[in-house]
């Protein structure tokens, strides 16, 4: 029996799909299945966050009740027998996915999260192609206008005024990850039932520390990085300008992880070169970007006889809070997600 912080952890055997697995008390069915590589789809569950059990996709059958139970919250117990795939489970998952998919179907091509979206991946996996419902979320901010139209539309809240995070409830699936992960408690629910939207109090423009954790965990395009991609691409392609990438400590890992999710095994340096960066500076753990940027703008520019004005500095970092408070000489900040998005848009991966 393993020991954890001096306390004995009880172990037990449970049956999953007629095979015996060892499970530790306090583990949920989903924990065991993830550990053993048994596939269970989820949208709201996220490791380290409270178990909300709201997406109703991880439902499984067990021997203790006739009802379907959410595996993400169901704790293992002696003599438990779990079935993770059956016609009934599949039906439940498909219907619930279809209900969510109704607001996303046909919108993928132009979506910021295309190929990086958990809902899209699941819809593909479960071959959700029915169009029983028309999308109901559309940008109609005026309640009266919506009532006049009588067109079964729900209100959408868009926040593009804050410097770092672009929010639109059009793609929100109310999974609650952002609400739970936010250290500033910036998000909560407004309204109820079909009108429910995740948002800030009184729907004010988001004003937080912009740590970017919510963007990281958002399964869809409801929360994405804010940037002017048009301008960025122009600057990258401009032959008269030199694009320099200052890569933050450990960012290579992050970008490669994003690429892996998009099933690409591209080399990091190749990727940046193909994107149009002419010089790449990798920061070590101790180095600060300010020093590096100063070096380029002053020493390097003088040495190579380049006009410092025509050097465009891209700081590749997940510290997107810097977008709210940009330093001198710094032109753009790109997160690992945005690098992947750029690569996707430019058809490099």
């Amino acid at each position: 029996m393993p020991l954890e912080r001096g306390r004995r952890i009880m172990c037990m055997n449970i049956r999953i799909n007629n095979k015996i697995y060892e499970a530790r008390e306090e583990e949920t069915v989903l924990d065991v299945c993830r550990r053993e590589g048994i596939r269970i789809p989820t949208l709201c569950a996220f490791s380290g966050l409270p178990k909300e059990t709201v997406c109703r996709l991880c439902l499984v059958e067990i021997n203790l009740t006739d009802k379907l139970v959410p595996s993400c919250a169901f704790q293992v117990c002696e003599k438990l027998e779990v079935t993770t795939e059956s016609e009934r489970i599949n039906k439940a998952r498909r219907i619930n996915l279809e209900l969510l998919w109704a607001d996303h179907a046909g919108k993928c091509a132009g979506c910021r999260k295309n190929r990086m979206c958990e809902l899209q991946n699941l819809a593909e996996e479960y071959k959700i192609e029915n169009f029983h419902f028309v999308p109901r979320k559309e940008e109609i901010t005026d309640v009266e206008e919506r009532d006049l139209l009588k067109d079964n539309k729900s209100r959408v809240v868009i926040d593009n005024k804050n410097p770092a995070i672009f929010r639109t409830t059009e793609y929100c699936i109310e999974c609650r990850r952002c609400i739970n992960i936010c250290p500033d408690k910036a998000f909560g629910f407004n309204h109820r039932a079909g009108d429910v939207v995740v948002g800030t109090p009184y729907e004010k423009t988001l004003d937080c520390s912009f740590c970017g954790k919510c963007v990281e965990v958002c399964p869809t395009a409801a929360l994405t990085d804010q940037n002017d991609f048009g301008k960025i691409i122009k600057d990258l392609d401009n032959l008269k300008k030199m694009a320099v990438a200052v890569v933050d400590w450990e960012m290579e890992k992050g970008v490669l992880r994003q690429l892996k999710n998009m099933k690409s095994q591209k080399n990091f340096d190749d990727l940046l070169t193909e994107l149009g960066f002419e010089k790449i500076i990798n920061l070590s753990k101790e180095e600060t970007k300010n020093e590096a940027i100063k070096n380029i703008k002053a020493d390097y520019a003088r040495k190579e006889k380049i006009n410092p004005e025509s050097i465009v500095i891209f700081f590749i970092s997940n510290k997107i809070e810097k977008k709210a408070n940009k330093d001198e000489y710094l032109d753009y900040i790109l997160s690992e997600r945005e690098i992947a998005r750029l690569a996707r848009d430019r058809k490099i991966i």
Partner: protein
Amino acid sequence: MNKNIKIITKYWDVADLKKIKNYESFGGYKALHKFIKDKNSDKFADEIKNSSLLGRGGAGFPTGDKLEAVAGSGEKERYFICNLDESEPGTYKDRAIVDNDPHKLIEGIIILSLIIGARKAFIYINGNYGKQEEILENALEEAYKKKYWGEKILKSDYNLEIGIFSGAGAYICGEETALINSIEGSRGEPKMRPPYPTEKGLFGKPTLVNNAETISNISWIVIYGGEEYAKIGSKNSPGTKLFVLGGAVKKPGVYELPLGVTIRELIFEIGGGLAKGKEFWFAQIGGSSGRLIMEKELDAKLEFGNKDFSIGSGAILVVDKTTNIYDLLLSWTGFFRRESCGKCVPCREGTFRLWEIAKRLQDGEISEADKKAVKDILWTLENTTFCPFGKFAAAAFRDAVEKLKILK
């Protein structure tokens, strides 16, 4: 069966029981005196258990079991909550209790709180019941002056504080975990169970939540004993129940009848049948979340534990053949689409889509795809939602599809 036995409504028409003097003159607060004299909460807990009183909110859970769980818990701090968040469409029995006999409710709250050892009791009242809140405030003040609650109740060592908490009128807050969330200041949405409120309820402490009608039975049980109570009504669900008769009957209103009465008796004897020229079509038992009962099923008994239908809140809507079923469907689905808390996917999206389809049904534009969608949505509401709300939302629509064949 003696249909004339009355426990809750006995003196409603006799005097203005809102005045504490009148209530006392009909034996009011005698049960509390008896309890304070005995100071034996275990004995009265047993009496309630022996009465086999079932929760009148709709689920029909044995009150004695809940009481035992809270009273026997290791935690010192406990809470009692009176659930007066009545919001099932067509139901106004709890409102009628407050309107006619608020002190009976308060007496029950005090006794139950003292039995479980709670120092603080809440009355969670529907936000739309403004007038009833006022009645309760006045009644509480009168009872406080008489030392029925507060510090040293009737010169004993018992202390109890009672507070009224007004909700915002959300249907889902009638569900006890959502109700607790609401009092705690969180969003009114149900919580995961277990832990049950009897273990970890309000502010994480053991909490007993009872419906106002259930509580109104307590003073009778304390005085006459649990065994006497168990003799009333049907064997498996004893006692009387308030039924709210509405719709196309001659005499709509609140009626107190022993459980086990048949639907036919209630509609045609008590309610005087349908108005002249109107033909019975079906009855809906238990408000908007209730099942539909056709003519041939009218001899079914109204009691808890019935496997074909739940009596729910006790509201009975009688529908005659001139009714447009599509209007009714739109009203049901519109209610659930508005009142879903929006927590889980099948309920939030499913109730919305069902309402959408009900609108198309009313316009006569239903397609084959809609018919299939209805089947899927009803199934997912019944099988995959977080709380029982989904099942409620699907019940009437399901019966309309199967019994009234609305999709053909």
